């Protein structure tokens, strides 16, 4: 809809402007606070003119928040989730689009409806499984009386256990499944002409070769777009890491921010807290800025 009326223009711009303010004001405050010395940040009302202490505050936050360890954890978790999700989703979509098996549509719809079930809904059972990732298998064996059978035959009690608590697997594995990503891959695969798969078959390419040498290279933009979304998603994980890790060595940056928030019996050093916040926010912003061209292209689904 393209209208050329000055009044409407003014109204839309006002709305845009207000939106921008609402979005940016907290960021501005955080930024200004991060640049101020301690005395200035506890002033009421706080000044909106940036000071010159950004670097000092950042260094302080880095040390106090143990950003070195946590940064590594964050990067590992984020990349783990990212690769896991993309591997999982692309393979699932490949199966759904290119293989004709029974209950194919059922599988697709089952995956699709999990779109409506975010992690928070299933967090308790997921936690239980994370305590022993082989629990479902164990229960299956129990139900089938196989445990008893084996115990009776060999005297060995089957007790499968794979504890994910306080491990990188625990941080990433339960978040691998992604209906959104699967769906995006599926939609993209559906746009790839069938002739391509057939030509590959005639050329003697098996399914895996077709997947890796043809489908994945063609999905480049799609993968880039997903990576952006998944990077931000993974980086910002809070609830799950909080639940699954108890060891301070396993904390992530987003969790670590909590340490920087002044408690009652400390100096309210909000300048340090805000400097830390800015640093934690930085990677997703950089990723979005660098990859935004790909991101838009991938979501619009066009080569070139």
């Amino acid at each position, binding site marked *: 809809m393209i209208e050329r009326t000055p009044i409407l223009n003014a109204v839309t711009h006002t709305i845009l402007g207000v939106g921008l303010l609402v979005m940016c004001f907290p960021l501005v405050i955080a930024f200004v606070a991060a640049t101020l010395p301690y005395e200035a940040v506890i002033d009421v009302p706080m000044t909106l003119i940036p000071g010159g202490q950004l670097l000092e505050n950042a260094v302080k936050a880095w040390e106090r928040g143990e950003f070195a360890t946590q940064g590594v954890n964050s990067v590992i978790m984020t990349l783990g989730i990212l690769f896991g999700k993309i591997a999982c989703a692309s393979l699932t979509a490949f199966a759904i689009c290119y293989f004709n098996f029974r209950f194919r549509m059922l599988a697709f719809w089952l995956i699709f409806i999990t779109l409506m079930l975010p992690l928070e809904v299933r967090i308790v059972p997921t936690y239980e499984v994370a305590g022993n990732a082989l629990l479902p298998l164990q229960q299956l064996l129990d139900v089938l009386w196989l445990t008893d059978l084996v115990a009776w035959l060999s005297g060995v009690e089957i007790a499968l256990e794979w504890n994910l608590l306080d491990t990188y697997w625990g941080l990433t594995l339960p978040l691998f499944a992604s209906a959104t990503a699967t769906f995006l891959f599926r939609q993209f695969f559906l746009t790839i*002409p069938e*002739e*391509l798969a*057939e*030509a*590959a*078959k*005639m*050329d*003697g*390419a098996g399914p895996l*070769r077709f997947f890796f040498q*043809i489908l994945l*290279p*063609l999905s*480049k933009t799609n993968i880039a777009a997903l990576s952006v979304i998944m990077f931000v998603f993974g980086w910002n994980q809070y609830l799950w890491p909080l639940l699954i890790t108890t060891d301070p060595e396993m904390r992530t940056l987003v969790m670590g921010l909590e340490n920087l928030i002044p408690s009652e019996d400390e100096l309210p050093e909000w300048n340090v807290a805000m400097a830390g916040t800015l640093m934690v926010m930085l990677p997703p912003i950089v990723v979005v800025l660098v990859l935004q061209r790909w991101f838009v292209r991938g979501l619009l689904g066009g*080569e*070139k």
Partner: protein
Amino acid sequence: MANVSMRQVRKSFGATEVIHGIDIEIGDGEFAVIVGPSGCGKSTLLRMIAGLEAVTAGEVAIGDRVVNDLEPKERDVAMVFQNYGLYPHMTAFQNISYALRIARRSKAEIRERVERVARILGIEDLLARKPSQLSGGQRQRVAMGRAIIREPDVFLFDEPLSNLDAKLRSQMRVEIKRLHDELKATSIFVTHDQVEAMTMADRLVVMNQGVIEQTGTPRQVYRRPGSTYVAGFIGAPAMNLLPATLSDDGAAVEGRGMGRIALPNGAGPDRSGRRVMLGVRPEHLAVVADGSGGLLAARLLYAEDLGASRLLHCAVGEDELIVHTQDETGDRPGDTLRLAADPANLHLFDAESGRRLEAVDGG
């Protein structure tokens, strides 16, 4: 090199059968063209030979191997697709060499073979380009290169020229034929274009709604179409078909607005009174002077000038027919023309079944 045979081949998608029991025998080195209207099952047939589609019933054999249960790559066939099916992210070189690379041939061998194929097709300079940087005709050549390089027993073409403009199409037609003469591999070419079919085929297979209407050389099919369907499909403009009735003695036909037309061989008395379709090709009709007998009288509706010749659209009673003539007489719409044809060029078909009545064969 190999012959291709299909025996009682059927294909169903779910409950709908689209190929209803087909028998074909294509000889070693032959260039067979399967022609038929869109949706008649040509691609399905081809894809069953390629192994891209399972056969529901019957047998497909290449050489002396029954290939029903073989994977496409095990069948030693190559296919050129309608939309080329080139890998968009690979250069022409990579596209052409993909099969060899999968087969783990040596770098030197791949390079040498790609270069030879590129030379045959005249695409040496395009090898570094991606499909998006190629024109339609060039893509077509790359797609052919991808098929040729494997040196298969059988080439399959699924309407490979339908995306090209008219000029390029006729050029590629000649080129594919030339290539076939050079490589001498058995080729099966699918098209809905009867001109392509006529000009390229050693053997023509006319398909309609999942069955084969007729096979033969293009000349045979043109001279003696086996049914009204084939008569209407092969040859342009299409054969004129006029409803008529066999006379009592079966030696002539009578129809609306055309009087009695004697048949050279007669149809035999057992068919007397039967309703038939009288067929005559536009190019076999000639305008003759008034009073010199002729076949029938027709009223000229309008004339189309093609330059080298003219198409006269005429009415005979309620039916229309077309005369393809090189005469340049100054006839006008509304004129009555007398038309004549060599009785040898008359075709007779059963009005109900549409099958050719063999006893009156003129051809």
